[in-house]
């Protein structure tokens, strides 16, 4: 038992580290670029050198790397403050779905541009009537000649406003059971009839959108899977979503909380000397360390060429609430000042307050805490699903809470 790379892994790590050292952009390199431009700049640079989407086949822009090499690459890349994130849905979710369900011409046309960062994709799944119960979605598609006509509304679409393409699940048959009447498409986000409205979040920011479809036309050639097979295709996407989101969290960690605790006083001593504070920090340390070493166990499985066990699915379920609790606790440490959210006046430029305000989103996005717990209960522990009132019922007969 050790943490050491195998010889091949060490050689690969060195190669990656060397390239990153020579090529990772500095702040000056990215000056004057907005978030998207900076991300595209870095992605293109990686692509040209063969360091983009490295597990993909060479012909699609990757280098046919193994899963463990991908982890090593991510570890090395994360040592640099390089622009990340805007390609996650396209590369991490749309691309694997295209690879599994798309035709060779789809692969040739779309995958290299996903890898190079030239085209950004978004995910059009959730709806006002279907979040955790995704298959309850109501956006409909009707066949007209070789095209499908889409009408309805999607919601919580990250990056819709800067995306070139979107993956879309719609209802093609409302008269069969809910999971059986769905089909899966991708579409050009510039198609006529697509309207994007930003959603202002409780943080004040607007990373998500509502996307409205009014008689939007999608050619049948942009369908993935058979008509009525949309749920299975969507599962491919969702499995990759959980893999892509993984660790969940960032934001406030023990190092930051300890630092803040060492800067504030309780009864004339630094808060780090208070036993209640120490106990809480210890508990969070146990969680952080537990996730880290669970990750090492998964890496070991990858290193041996096997698939990691389901233990990896706990990252988001532990990380997101922990982030919220820790942010809340750090504000408590500041006492009256904890309420101040100001870059100048707050400790750490308001990172704690920002994390506190953002953390409810982490606990919901990509599967709520409750859905994640269900997944562990059902897929890991083998417990039965709860009985479903809509099982086998034609979608049109499924009760709704009113409204539509």
């Amino acid at each position, binding site marked *: 038992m050790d943490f050491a790379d195998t010889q091949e892994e060490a050689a690969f790590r060195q190669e990656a580290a060397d390239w990153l050292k020579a090529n990772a952009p500095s702040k000056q390199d990215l000056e004057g670029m907005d978030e998207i431009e900076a991300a595209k700049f870095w992605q293109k640079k990686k692509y040209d050198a063969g360091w983009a989407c490295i597990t993909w086949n060479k012909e699609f822009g990757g280098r046919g790397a193994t899963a463990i090499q991908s982890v090593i690459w991510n570890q090395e890349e994360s040592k640099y403050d390089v622009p990340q994130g805007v390609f996650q849905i396209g590369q991490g979710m749309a691309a694997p779905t295209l690879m599994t369900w798309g035709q060779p011409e789809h692969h040739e046309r779309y995958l290299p541009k996903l890898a190079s960062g030239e085209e950004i994709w978004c995910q059009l799944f959730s709806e006002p009537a279907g979040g955790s119960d995704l298959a309850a979605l109501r956006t409909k598609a009707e066949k007209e000649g070789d095209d499908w006509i889409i009408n309805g509304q999607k919601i919580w679409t990250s990056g819709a406003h800067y995306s070139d393409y979107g993956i879309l699940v719609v209802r093609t048959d409302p008269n069969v059971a809910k999971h059986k009447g769905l089909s899966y498409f991708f579409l050009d986000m510039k198609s006529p009839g697509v309207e994007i409205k930003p959603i202002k979040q409780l943080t004040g920011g607007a990373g998500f959108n509502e996307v409205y479809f009014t008689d939007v036309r999608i050619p049948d050639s942009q369908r993935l899977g058979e008509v009525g097979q949309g749920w299975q295709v969507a599962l491919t996407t969702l499995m990759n979503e959980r893999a892509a989101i993984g660790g969940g969290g960032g934001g406030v960690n023990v190092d930051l909380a300890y630092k803040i605790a060492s800067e504030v006083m309780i009864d004339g001593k630094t808060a780090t000397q208070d036993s209640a504070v*120490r106990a809480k920090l210890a508990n969070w*340390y146990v969680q952080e*360390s537990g996730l880290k*070493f669970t990750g090492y166990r998964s890496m070991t499985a990858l290193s041996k060429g096997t698939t990691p066990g389901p233990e990896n699915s706990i990252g988001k379920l532990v990380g997101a609430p922990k982030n919220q609790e820790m942010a809340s606790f750090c504000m408590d440490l500041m006492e009256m000042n904890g309420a101040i959210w100001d870059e100048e006046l707050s400790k750490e430029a308001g990172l704690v307050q920002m994390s506190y305000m953002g953390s409810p989103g982490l606990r919901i996005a990509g599967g709520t805490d409750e859905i994640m717990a269900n997944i562990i209960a059902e897929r890991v522990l083998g*417990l*039965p699903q*709860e009985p479903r009132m809509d099982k086998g019922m034609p979608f049109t007969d499924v009760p709704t809470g009113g409204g539509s």
Partner: protein
Amino acid sequence: MNFEFSEEQELLREQARGFLADNCAPSVVRGVLDSQGDYDADLWKKVAEMGWTSTVIPEEFGGLGLSYLELVVVAEELGRAVAPIPFSSSVYLATEAILANGSVEQKEKWLPKLASGEVVGTFALAEGSGRPSAESLNTRFEAGKLTGKKLPVPDGNIADFAVIVTKSDTGDGASLALVELNQEAVIRSSVRTLDFSRGHASIEFKGAEAEILGADGSGWSAMESLMDRAAVMFAWEQVGIADAALEQARDYAMGRYAFGRAIASYQAIKHKLADMYVKNTLARSNCYYGAWALNSDSSELGLAAATARVGAIQASVNAAQENVQTHGGMGFTWEFDCQFFYRRAKLLSVNIGSEGFWQDKLITAYEQSNVA
């Protein structure tokens, strides 16, 4: 990355699990529990014959000379089986104390017998309620004689010798003393604890013959180092308990029907079991870290041990409690085995210092690692 047990170690696990299924069935635990005995002597003999008591003892002292990775595999399995034997006292504490602090003569005298299971050793720190410190010790070792009282001493009734933390006027304020318990100046009496399947004693020393273990005035740091090592092995036992309790809860929830369906299909139960799984998994991964640190003599051992110990306390106590809860009224009966985990998890969680004690140690170790 090779953060996993080897194939041989997994084979050992399989063998250990099979052995304990045959020799430490719930009826064996229940036998000790019902009679409030000290341990199962037959099981102890067989476990020693398997060589488990000799796992890390060097071959020159009659041991197998294997690594701590083998020992923690055994520890986890003993935890799963709630084995009613003095393994933790004799192997994780007494043997370790002699390995780390013993003179050649002491090693030659005790290690072969500890390896064969012929003698049982134990370790005694506590002298009453509250967190021990060198200042609070009343037990004294002077001119070869030991005086004072230790309470509670795990497996104190059956142990042949004990390693005692005593007050010292030099160094760090404490010394370790090794005392044979079968002598007139040692008065033992049984103490009832919440785990009826593991005997505990109160031991009074009235000028008992004893000898120093290690250097005078270095007992407190020796004890802390011993605790760190033992904490990793305790944590593995606790993780074994945690997983076994989760499995018992799962099996019951699958078979128990209420309102026309298995209670395992209710989210209230599913989320409870998922939460147990999450805590157990994090605890296990931290135990890997502890095992690695123990086995590689890492400078991170203090931090790794405390992390493993805190996680394992939380996971095992939670799993034991929620296992009873999942069973409903039947979980509260004497007849059901849920009580085994409920008792043992809590016993082990205070045996070498509580959650709060180890949380504090964890942050102290964290602070030291940041300075280093």
